[in-house]
C-alpha cells in the first residue's frame, strides 16, 4: 500500500503571479515501492457552462464554451525507480507563469463560470498496479490591479413610486425606506457596509435582507448568455423594526465565491446586491445595486 500526498508550503494556499509554488510530494509506503516515474502537473482552467435554459440557443457557437487553459506546466519529480520503505518527501518548486497571451485570473467558483487552479501529482506504476494520483487546489490572487477601489457612495430611497413592475398601485402599502451604501466600488476583503432606515411603513415588516448576486455572462460578440444567481442572502432585520432607526448593512464577501469583477472576451463576472424588504404578508420589494469589486 502506498499513499501519495501534496503539501504546499503556504497554509492558506494563496499565490500571486510570479510567486514560486513550493511544497513537497509525500509518499507513504509500506515496503519498497517500485514506480515508473512521478510527475507533477500544474494547471489553471476557466470552465464555462451553459444554463439549462440557454442550451438550445447556444449549441451553434459551442466553440466559445471550450475550457480556457490559463496555465499548464508539467514537471518530472522523480525518475522511474524505487522508493524506500516509509515516508519519502520530495520537494518541488514551480514558478507561477501563465501561458503566453493569457492572464492568471483570480480563483472563482461560480455556477456557469469556474476559474480553478490545481496541482496534481501522478505516479506511474507497472501494469499490475494502479497509477496513483492526488491533486490539490491552490488559490490565485492578483499581484496588482490597475483599477483601484474608489469610494462611491450610493444613496437610495425606496418608495412605492420607485417600483417598476407593479400592476395595481393602490394595493401597495405606503412605505419609505431610505439609506445608503458606503461604496458600490469595493475591495473584496472589505465588507459591504451601509445603513438603512425605515422611515414610514404602513404594513408590518417581516424581514429585510441583503442578497448577494453573481451575474455571469458567457459568449462572444455573436451572442451571449447572462445569468444572475444568488450567492448568499444575509438578513439584516428580523421582524417589524423600529421606524427611523438606522439599521446597519454589513456583509462579508465569501471567499472563492467572489472575485474581483472580471470582463474578458469570452466571459464576464459581475456582482450585484439586492436589498429585499419582505412584508408580513410575504410580499416583497427589491432594489438592485450593481457592485464593482477589486482586489486593491
Amino acid at each position, binding site marked *: 500500500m502506498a499513499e501519495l500526498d501534496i503539501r504546499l508550503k503556504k*497554509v*492558506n494556499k494563496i499565490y500571486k503571479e510570479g510567486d514560486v509554488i513550493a511544497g513537497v510530494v509525500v509518499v507513504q509506503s509500506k515496503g519498497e515501492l517500485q514506480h515508473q516515474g512521478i510527475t507533477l502537473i500544474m494547471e489553471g482552467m476557466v470552465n464555462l457552462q451553459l444554463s439549462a435554459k440557454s442550451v438550445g440557443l447556444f449549441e451553434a457557437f459551442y466553440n466559445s464554451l471550450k475550457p480556457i487553459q490559463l496555465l499548464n506546466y508539467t514537471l518530472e519529480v522523480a525518475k522511474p525507480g524505487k522508493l524506500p520503505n516509509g515516508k519519502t518527501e520530495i520537494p518541488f518548486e514551480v514558478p507561477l507563469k501563465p501561458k503566453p497571451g493569457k492572464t492568471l485570473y483570480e480563483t472563482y467558483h461560480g455556477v456557469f463560470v469556474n476559474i480553478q487552479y490545481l496541482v496534481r501529482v501522478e505516479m506511474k506504476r507497472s501494469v499490475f498496479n494502479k497509477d496513483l494520483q492526488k491533486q490539490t487546489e491552490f488559490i490565485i490572487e492578483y499581484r496588482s490591479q490597475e483599477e483601484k477601489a474608489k469610494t462611491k457612495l450610493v444613496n437610495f430611497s425606496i418608495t412605492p413610486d420607485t417600483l417598476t413592475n407593479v400592476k395595481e398601485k393602490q394595493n401597495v402599502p405606503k412605505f419609505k425606506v431610505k439609506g445608503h451604501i458606503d461604496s458600490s466600488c469595493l475591495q473584496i476583503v472589505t*465588507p459591504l457596509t451601509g445603513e438603512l432606515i425605515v422611515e414610514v411603513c404602513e404594513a*408590518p*415588516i417581516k424581514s*429585510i435582507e441583503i442578497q448577494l448576486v453573481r451575474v455571469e455572462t458567457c459568449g462572444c460578440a455573436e451572442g451571449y448568455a447572462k445569468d444572475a444567481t444568488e450567492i*448568499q*442572502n*444575509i*438578513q*439584516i*432585520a*428580523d*421582524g*417589524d*423594526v*423600529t421606524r427611523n*432607526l*438606522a*439599521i*446597519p448593512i*454589513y*456583509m*462579508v464577501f*465569501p*471567499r472563492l465565491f467572489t472575485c474581483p469583477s472580471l470582463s474578458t472576451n469570452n466571459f464576464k463576472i459581475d456582482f450585484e446586491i439586492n436589498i429585499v424588504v419582505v412584508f408580513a404578508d410575504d410580499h416583497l420589494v427589491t432594489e438592485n445595486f450593481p457592485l464593482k469589486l477589486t482586489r486593491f
Partner: protein
Amino acid sequence: MATYEWFPRPRNYAFETKAFEAVAVPATSHPLKAITVTEVKKSGDKKEINRAPATSSAPKAVLGDPLGMSDPLSGGISVEFDGLDPLSRIMKGDSLTSGKASRADSIKISKLDEVDGGNSLSETFEPWSLKKAGILARYTTSEKLSITTSFLSPSDQEKVVIKTQTQSQTTGTVSDKVRNRLEQLDDFEEGSVKEMLNLSQQEYVKRIEELNQALITAWDSDHRVKALKIAIQCSKLLADVSVIPFYPSKFVLITDILDTFGRLVYERLLDKAQSSLPGSARPHRLSANFTSDEVPEAAKETCRNWFFKIASIRELIPRLYVEAALLKSYNFLNTGEYSDALLRLSLMSRGIGDPLVAVYSRCYLCRVGILVAPKFKEHIPRCFEDFITTFPQVQGETVQNTLALQKLEMPRYLTLFSPALDWILQCLAHSASETLLNETMDQCKQHCNNALMINSIMSAFQPQFIANRALVFTEMIRDCEGTGLPKHLLYRTLGLCLVVAETPEDQRLSVLNEVWKAVVKLKNPSDYIGCAEVWIEFVVKHCGKREINIFLGDIIKHMTPDRAYEDFYPQLQSVVSKVLAHQHDFSLLFSLDKFLTFIDMFQRESIKVEICKCILESFNKHQVTAINDPVVINAMMFLGKIMHDSVDALTLDDEKRVIGQLLCGFIRLVQFGRDFEQQLSFYVESRAYFSNLDAVLITLIHSVNNLAVETRRVVKGNHSSKTAPFVRACAAYCFITIPSLQAIFSQLQLYLLSGQVAILNQCYSQGDAFFKAAISLIPEVPKTMDGDSKSRSSEPYLLEFLYSFVATLLVTPDNPEAGVMYLLRGLLNVLHDYTWDPNSDARILVYSRVLAMLSAASQEEYLYHIDKVDSNDSMYGNDPKFLAEVKSMADTLIAEILTHLKTISAPEFSKRQSSLITEIVSVLLTTCDFSQQSVATLTVNLWGLAQKNGQADVKTLKKLLDVAKAKASAGSTAFQGLLPKLVINSS
C-alpha cells in the same frame, strides 16, 4: 479478725499552715506555653518561618509575668492555628477536589475564573452565574413548548414520540396519531429537522441540556460543522417568542450552550496555535495575554474560516449570537479586534424587531463583552440608548398581537424585560460616576419615563447615588407612565436602595411622606407588605418612636382584613427583625402600643415562637444594662411564656436548650436593685410562668440564693426582724422549687448549695431540711446518666458531690434535739444501703473521706467556720461524750473498710486492692494519732498488705513515706516509732 481502734491526731492548724507555706518564686517559663512554642519552631515549614519572630517574642514576654496581661496562651493558640489548623486546610482541599468532580462544574468554575481573570472587574460586580438561577426560578411556564432541531439522539426521539403518543391518546384525535407516525418515519432520515411539540417545561429544559451534550459530543468527535449547526439551531430558538413568559429562562439555557461552544472553539484554536508554533517541536505555551502577532498563520487561517462561516449565516439572530459567542477568538486575528466587533454587533441588534428578543441579544453582547474585554465599554451605552429608542415598539401592533394571542397582560410582559435590562444597566453603571446616572436619568425622562426603566436604574446604580436623589426618584416614580411595572415594585426597589445608603437628612421626611402616601393606598395586601417590609427599615433607622408606631399600626390595619397576615408571615417576620436590628431600646419598643399588637398577628404557633425567640435573642444581645421597667418585664414575660409553652414532650433538646438560654438571659437581666422583695416576687412569678424548663428553674434557684446572700451582705450578717423572714422565704422558695427539677444531680447540687446558703443565713432548720432532702434523694441517683449521646456511669459525679457534702457537714451545727452528727449518720446509713457498682470501691473512698472529716471534727477548733455560725466545736466544746461518739463512728467505718478489703483480697483484684489501700493509708497518715498502738498496727498492716502482691504504686508509697519522714524529723515521736515499720519492698 482483730478490731482496730481509731484515734484522731490533735492538730494545730495555724502551725501547720505556717510550716507548709510555700515561698513564691518567679517562674522562668510558662508551664503550658512551653510545649506549644517548641512545636511551632520545630514544625518549621516554610510558612512558619515568617511567623517565627512573632512566636519567639511571645516567650520573652512570659519570663516577666507568666499570668499577667500579656498572657501568651491566647496569642500562642492563634499563632499555632494560623499555620496548622487542619480543619481549615481540609476545607480548602475539599473545595479544590470537589471542583473537579464533574465536567459541568468545571465548566462553571472556569467561567468564574474568567470573571476573575478579567482583572479589572471588581468584586462588586455581580457575575451572571449568580443571576442565572434566579431567572430560571422566576420565569416559568405551564404552557407546552416546542423545539426544532435535528440533533437529538434517536433513542431520545423515540422517547419523545412515545410521550407524545401517550399524550395524543389521552386527547385521542386521529390526526395527532397520524402526525406522530409521520414524524417517526421522518426520524429515519438522518439530519431531518424535526419539530418536537407539546413539551412541558421540564422536558424542554432536558432537551436543551441534551443539545448541549450533543454539541460537546460532536465537538469531541471532530464533527465541528455539526457542532456549529447545533449552535446555530439553538440560537434560532431565541427568535421564537411563542411562549413568551418562558423567554428569559430560555435565554439563560441557550446562552449557556453558546458559551460552551465559544469556549470549545477558543480552546481548540489556542491548542492549534500552540501546537503549530514554528521552530519548536513540542507544544509551546502562549502567554496569557498574547497578541495576534504571536499566533502562527495556520491558527489564524482556521480562525478566519470560522468567522467567514459565521458571516454567511443567513438569519440575523443566529449570526449575531454565534458571532458574539466566538468573540473571544478574535484575539487570534487581531488584538483588540473585538472592540470593533462589539460595536458592530450592538448596531446589528437594531435589526431585531421584537423588543424582547432585541433587549436579550443586547444583554448577551454586554455579557460577553464584559468577560472578553472588561475595559471596553463603548458598546454598552449604545445598547442602552438603542433600547430606549426601540422601547416604544412594545406598544406596536406585532407585540400587542402576540400578547393578545398568549393572553399575557402588559405589566407581566414588561417584567420579562427586567433581567436583561438589569444586566445592561449593571454593566453600564458598574463603577460609573454620578454624572452617568444624571445622563441616564435625563435620557430616561425624555424618552421613556417608564416604570421598568426607573426600576432597573435604581437597582443598577450605586445605592448612595440613588439615595442622594431620593426626592427626584420619588417624583419620577409618581409621574411615570401608568403602564408597565406596578408602582409598588418601584417603591420597594427605592426602599431597598435607601436603607443601605445614607439618605440626605433634609430629604428623609419628605421622601417618606411621598412614598407612604402612595403605599398606604395599596389595596392588595401582597403589594402592600412588599413595600412595608422594606420601608420599615428606613423608618426605624431615621425616625422616632411616633413614626414607628404609626407605621406598625398601618401595617396592622392593612394586614388584618380577611386575616391577610396569614399569608405573609415571612414578610411580617422580616419586619420584626428589621425593627429589632435597629431599635435596641426595649422600653421604647414595648411602650409602643402597636408593637405587641403587631406580634399578635402571628397566629400560627411555630411562627409566633420564632418571633418570640427573635425578640429575646435581640434582647439578650443588645440589652447590656439591667432592667426594671415593668412594661418591658411584662412584655418579655408574655413573650417568654409563649416560647415556654411551645415546649412539649416532642421538642428537641437543642430547641429546649435555646429557649432555656434565652429565658435565663432575660431573667438575669431583670434587677430591682435594693428592692429585694420585688425581686423575689419576680422570681416567684417567673417560676409560675416557666416551670417546665430545668435550665430556667436552675437559674431561678441560683438567683434566689444569690438574693439571699446579697441580703446578708447588706445587713452584714446580722439579720433584722425584717430580713430574717425574707431569707427564710428565699430558702423556702428554693426548697419547693428544687423537687420539680428533672435532673437528680441538679437537685442534689442545688440542695447542697441552698443548704449552705441557708446555714450561712442562720436558718438552721431550713439548712437541715435541705441536707435531709439531699440525703434522702441519694438512693434515687441513677447508676448511669445520659450525656452527649452516650450514657456514662454517674459514680464520679456522685463521689464529687459526696466529698463536697461531707466537707459541708463538718461545719454544720448539730440540731440539739437530734443526736450527735445525726446528718452524717443518716448519710452513712443511706450510703450503706445504696446499691453500689460491685466493681468499684467508691463507697470505701467516701468512707475514707468521712474518716478524715471525723478526725477534723475531733479537733478543739475546726479548720474552717461559717461566719457567725457556731459549729460543733464551740457547741460541744470538745466534750468527751461527743468525742466518744465520733470515735465509735470511725471504728465502725474502719471495720467496714476492712471487711471490704477482704472481699477483694483475691489475687485478680490485687491491683485494685493495693491502690485502695494506698488511698486509705494516706488518709490515716495525715489524720491518725500513731502514739496509739492500735492505729499504728493498722497502718503498718495495711502498708504490708498493699505491697503483698507486688502491685503497689511505689511512687505514691515513696511520697507517703516522705510525709512520714518529714513528720518524724519535725519531732513527732509517734512517727519516729512508726517509720522503721514502713518499708518499701523493692522488688
